[in-house]
C-alpha cells in the first residue's frame, strides 16, 4: 500500500516537474525570440524623423491679395437744397463734355435756397455785432487803485514804526543800564562781605585749634606730675628720711597746684572772636544784590509788555502788519479779477472767431451755390467725364447734400486698389515694390509701388492703392487684379523651420538629435532645447537659445516627441 502511494507521489512529482520544465522552456523560448526581434520591433515602433541644421539668414514674408482696377478718385455732384428734379438728361456710362447738361431742376427751388442762405448770413452778422456791442470786459482799475492805496498806507506805517522803535530803544537802554549798575554794585559788596566773613571764620577756627592743643598739653603736664607724686610716695616712703620725704612731696604738690591754676587761668581767659556779625553783614549785602537783580528783571519785563513806549511800539507794529496784510489781500483780489478778465476775453475772442467763421462759411456756400447752381435750372458737367453713378430720377425731390451724380474724369489715370488686414498691412508700407497680375482678356503682369495706405475704420482693413505705370497695356476700370509682394527681415543668426518648433507648457522647444550608447548599441534620441522665437514667416522662424549651427534638429517626425525619446532617422 505504502509502495503504491509513493509511486503515485513520485508520478505526481514527475508530472509537475515536466510541466514546470515545459513552462520554463516556453518562457525562455519566448524571451529569446523577443530578444532576437527586439531591435526590429523597437525600430518599427520608434518615431521616424527627418533632421535639418539651423542656418543664419533672412525671413521672407509673402503677401497675397486680390484687388481691382479703379480710378483714384471720382467727382461727385451734390444737391444744395430740396430741389425738385424736372428731368434727368444722362444715364450711367454716358460720356459727357464739360458744360453738358446733366439734369434740369426747378428754378424756384434754387432761388429760394439762395435767399435762405443770404438770410442766414445776415442773421449771423447781426448776432456778431450784438455780441461785440454787449461785451464790456472786467473793470480792473478800481482794484489797482486799492492796491496802490494799501501800499501807501504800509509805507506810512513803516516810517512811524521806525521812529517809535528808535525812541523805545533809547529809553529802555537807559533804565536797564541804571538797574544793571545798581545790581553790579550790590553784587560786589556782597562778594566783599562774603570774603570778610570767610577770613574771620578761618581765623576763629585756627585760634580754637590752638586753644584745644594748649589745654591738652597742660592737662597732660598735670597728669604727669600726679603720676610723679604717686611714684615717689610708693618708692621712697620709709626709705628716705621723713623730712626729706615730706619736703619732696610738698614740692611736688606745689608744682601740681601751680599747673592746675595755670590751666584754669588759661581756660578762663580764652575767648573766640565773634564771626556772627560778619555773617550778618554778608546776608544783608546778599539780600541787596538779589533785590537789585529782581529790580533789573522787573524793569526789563515791564518794558517788554506794559511800558508806554512798548504799547506805542506794539500799536505801530500792528498798524504796519495790517497794512502789509491789506496789500496782500488787494493783490490777490486784483489777480483773481485779472484771471476772470482773461477768461472772459478768451471766451469773447473765441465766440467772435466762431461767429466770423460761420459767416465766412455761409458766404462761401452762397458763392458756391451761385457758382454751381445753374441760373436757368440746368445742372451741367464740370469736366469731360464718364457718368459712373446716377442717384436721382425724374420728378424726385432730393434732400440737401444728397449725391446726384458721380463722374469719372476722362483725363484721370487708373489705379489698382486692394485691402489688407492689419497683420499683413504691417508688412507693406508706402514705397514698397508690388507685383500685379491684371486679369482681362489677356493677363497683364506689371510692377509698381505702393502709393497710398489708409486705414478704413468701417471694416477695420487697410486700403492700398498703386498707380498703373504708363504703357501697361489695355487696362480698364473694374478688372480683377492679383497682388503679390514680399519683404525680407534683417539677418538672424539662427533660423529653423517652423515645423521644428513645438510648444509645450507655453514654452517653445526644438528637438535636437543626439546619440547615445544603449542596450542594443548606439541609438538616437532627442533632447528638448528651449528656444525663444524672435520672428517667424510662413515657413521658418528666427530663434535664440542654446543651439548651434552644427546641431541637427528635428524638422519632421511621424510621432509626437518628448525629451529623451529614442528615435530613428528616416
Amino acid at each position, binding site marked *: 500500500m505504502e509502495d503504491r502511494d509513493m509511486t503515485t507521489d513520485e508520478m505526481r*512529482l514527475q508530472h*509537475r*516537474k515536466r510541466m*514546470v*520544465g515545459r*513552462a*520554463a522552456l516556453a*518562457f*525562455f523560448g519566448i*524571451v529569446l525570440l*523577443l*530578444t532576437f526581434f*527586439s*531591435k526590429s*520591433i*523597437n525600430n518599427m*515602433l520608434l518615431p521616424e524623423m527627418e533632421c535639418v541644421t539651423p542656418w543664419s539668414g533672412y525671413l521672407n514674408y509673402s503677401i497675397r491679395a486680390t484687388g481691382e482696377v479703379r480710378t483714384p478718385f471720382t467727382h461727385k455732384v451734390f444737391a444744395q437744397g430740396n430741389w425738385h428734379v424736372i428731368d434727368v438728361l444722362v444715364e450711367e456710362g454716358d460720356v459727357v463734355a464739360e458744360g453738358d447738361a446733366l439734369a434740369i431742376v426747378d428754378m424756384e427751388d434754387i432761388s429760394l435756397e439762395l435767399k435762405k442762405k443770404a438770410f442766414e448770413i445776415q442773421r449771423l452778422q447781426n448776432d456778431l455785432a450784438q455780441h461785440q456791442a454787449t461785451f464790456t470786459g472786467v473793470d480792473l482799475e478800481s482794484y489797482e487803485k486799492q492796491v496802490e492805496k494799501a501800499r501807501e498806507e504800509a509805507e506810512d506805517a513803516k516810517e512811524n514804526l521806525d521812529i517809535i522803535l528808535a525812541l523805545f530803544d533809547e529809553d529802555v537802554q537807559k533804565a536797564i543800564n541804571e538797574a544793571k549798575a545798581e545790581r553790579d554794585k550790590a553784587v560786589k559788596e556782597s562778594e566783599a562781605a562774603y570774603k570778610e566773613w570767610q577770613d574771620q571764620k578761618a581765623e576763629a577756627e585756627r585760634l580754637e585749634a590752638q586753644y584745644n592743643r594748649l589745654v591738652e598739653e597742660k592737662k597732660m603736664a598735670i597728669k604727669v606730675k600726679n603720676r610723679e607724686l604717686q611714684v615717689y610716695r610708693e618708692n621712697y616712703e620709709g626709705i628716705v628720711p621723713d623730712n626729706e620725704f615730706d619736703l619732696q612731696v610738698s614740692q611736688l604738690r606745689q608744682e601740681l597746684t601751680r599747673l592746675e591754676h595755670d590751666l584754669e587761668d588759661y581756660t578762663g581767659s580764652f575767648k573766640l572772636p565773634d564771626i556772627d556779625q560778619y555773617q550778618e553783614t554778608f546776608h544783608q549785602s546778599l539780600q541787596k544784590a538779589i533785590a537789585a537783580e529782581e529790580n533789573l528783571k522787573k524793569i526789563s519785563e515791564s518794558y517788554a509788555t506794559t511800558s508806554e513806549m512798548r504799547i506805542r511800539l506794539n500799536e505801530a507794529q500792528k498798524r504796519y502788519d495790517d497794512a502789509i496784510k491789506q496789500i496782500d489781500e488787494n493783490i490777490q483780489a486784483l489777480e483773481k479779477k485779472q484771471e476772470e478778465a482773461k477768461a472772459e476775453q478768451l471766451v469773447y475772442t473765441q465766440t467772435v472767431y466762431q461767429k466770423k467763421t460761420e459767416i465766412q462759411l455761409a458766404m462761401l456756400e452762397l458763392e458756391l451755390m451761385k457758382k454751381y447752381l445753374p441760373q436757368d435750372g440746368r445742372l451741367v458737367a464740370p469736366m469731360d467725364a464718364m457718368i459712373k453713378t446716377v442717384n436721382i430720377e425724374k420728378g424726385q425731390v432730393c434732400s440737401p447734400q444728397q449725391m446726384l451724380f458721380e463722374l469719372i474724369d476722362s483725363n484721370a489715370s487708373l489705379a489698382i486698389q486692394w485691402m489688407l488686414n492689419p497683420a499683413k498691412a504691417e508688412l507693406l508700407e508706402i514705397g514698397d515694390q508690388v507685383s500685379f497680375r491684371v486679369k482681362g482678356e489677356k493677363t497683364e503682369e506689371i510692377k509698381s509701388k505702393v502709393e497710398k495706405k489708409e486705414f478704413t475704420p468701417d471694416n477695420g482693413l487697410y486700403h492700398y492703392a498703386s498707380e498703373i505705370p504708363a504703357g501697361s497695356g489695355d487696362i480698364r476700370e473694374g478688372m480683377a487684379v492679383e497682388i503679390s509682394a514680399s519683404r525680407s527681415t534683417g539677418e538672424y543668426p539662427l533660423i529653423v523651420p517652423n515645423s521644428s518648433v513645438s510648444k509645450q507648457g507655453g514654452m517653445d522647444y526644438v528637438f535636437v538629435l543626439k546619440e547615445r*550608447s*544603449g*542596450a*542594443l548599441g548606439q541609438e538616437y534620441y532627442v533632447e528638448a532645447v528651449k528656444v525663444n522665437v524672435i520672428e517667424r514667416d510662413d515657413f521658418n522662424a528666427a530663434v535664440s537659445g542654446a543651439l548651434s549651427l552644427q546641431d541637427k534638429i528635428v524638422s519632421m517626425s511621424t510621432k509626437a516627441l518628448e525629451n529623451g525619446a529614442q528615435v530613428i532617422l528616416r
Partner: protein
Amino acid sequence: MIATGRRKARIPKGAGKFVAYILLVVASATMLFPVVYMVCNSFMSSNEVAEAYALLSGDAVFEAGAVKKLSIRLIPERVSLMQYYQALLRKPTFLVMFWNSVIVTVPIVAGQLVVATLGAYAFAKLKFPLRAPIFFLYIIVMMMPFQVTLVPQYITLKKLGLLGSRLAVILPGIFSTFGIFLLRQFMARIPDEYGEAAKIDGAGHFRIFTSIILPQCRGAMASLAILIFVDNWNMVEQPLLFLDDERMHPLSIFLSRINTSELGVAFACGILYLLPALFVFLYGENYLIEGIQRSGLK
C-alpha cells in the same frame, strides 16, 4: 480527605490547533501579500501605475496645498496587458538585461557546484594537516557580510585586470564558501565505510567521489543550485561596482532603477523577473527540502 489542590483550567480540545492555524494563515498572508500585490498591479495600465505611485518617482501630486498620499491599489481600474507589452516589446533593454542575468548566473551556479563538491569532499573525507583550522576559516569568511569583503575583492579584481568584465562578477561567485560548507555538512553524514569498501575494491579518490559520494549528494547539490541561483539572480552590488558598462548590467539593476524613471512597467517587469527563480524553485523544490533537511541546516 479534603481536596485542597486547584482544578486545572480545561482548554477545549482543538483550540490550540485553531490558534496555530490562525497565526500561520496571518503569517502566510503577510508573506504572500507582496507577490499578490505585484501580480494585481501588473495588470494596470502604465498611466494608472504612474498616477497611483507618483510619489515613488518624485512626481508628487499636490492637492489643495497637501501632498497626495500613496494609495495601495489591488484592483485595476481597467485590466490591461500594457505593462507586459511595454516590457517585452517596447523595452529591448529589459530583454538584454534578462540575458545578462542569465549569462552571469548560470556559470556561477555550474562553477560553484563543481568547486563546492570537490572542496566539500576534501573537508569531509580526506585527512590532511590543518583541515579543521582551514574549514574554520571558511566558516569565518562565510559569516562575514558581503560589504566587508567588497574592498579586498575590488582591489584583487583590479590587480588581475578583470574589472569591467563579466568574470569580475562570475569568479567571486564561483568560489563562494557557502556551497562548500553546505555540501561538507551533507557529505560528513555519509558513512566512511562506503569509501573504505571501495578502496578495498581498488577504487581511488576520484572513483569514490564520482561513483559513491556524488550520487548520494544529488539532493544537496540541487538545493545548493537553487539557493545559488536565487542569490545570484538577485545580486545588485557586485555588478554595480565591478561592471562599468551599463550594457552588461543584469536585470536586478534594471529593476532597482525602475522606480524612478519607468514606474509604469515596474510590476510587469517584477513578475517577469520573478519567473526564472520560480521555475528553478518549483523544479527542484523536493531536492531543496531534502537537501536542507539532510545537511542539518534546518
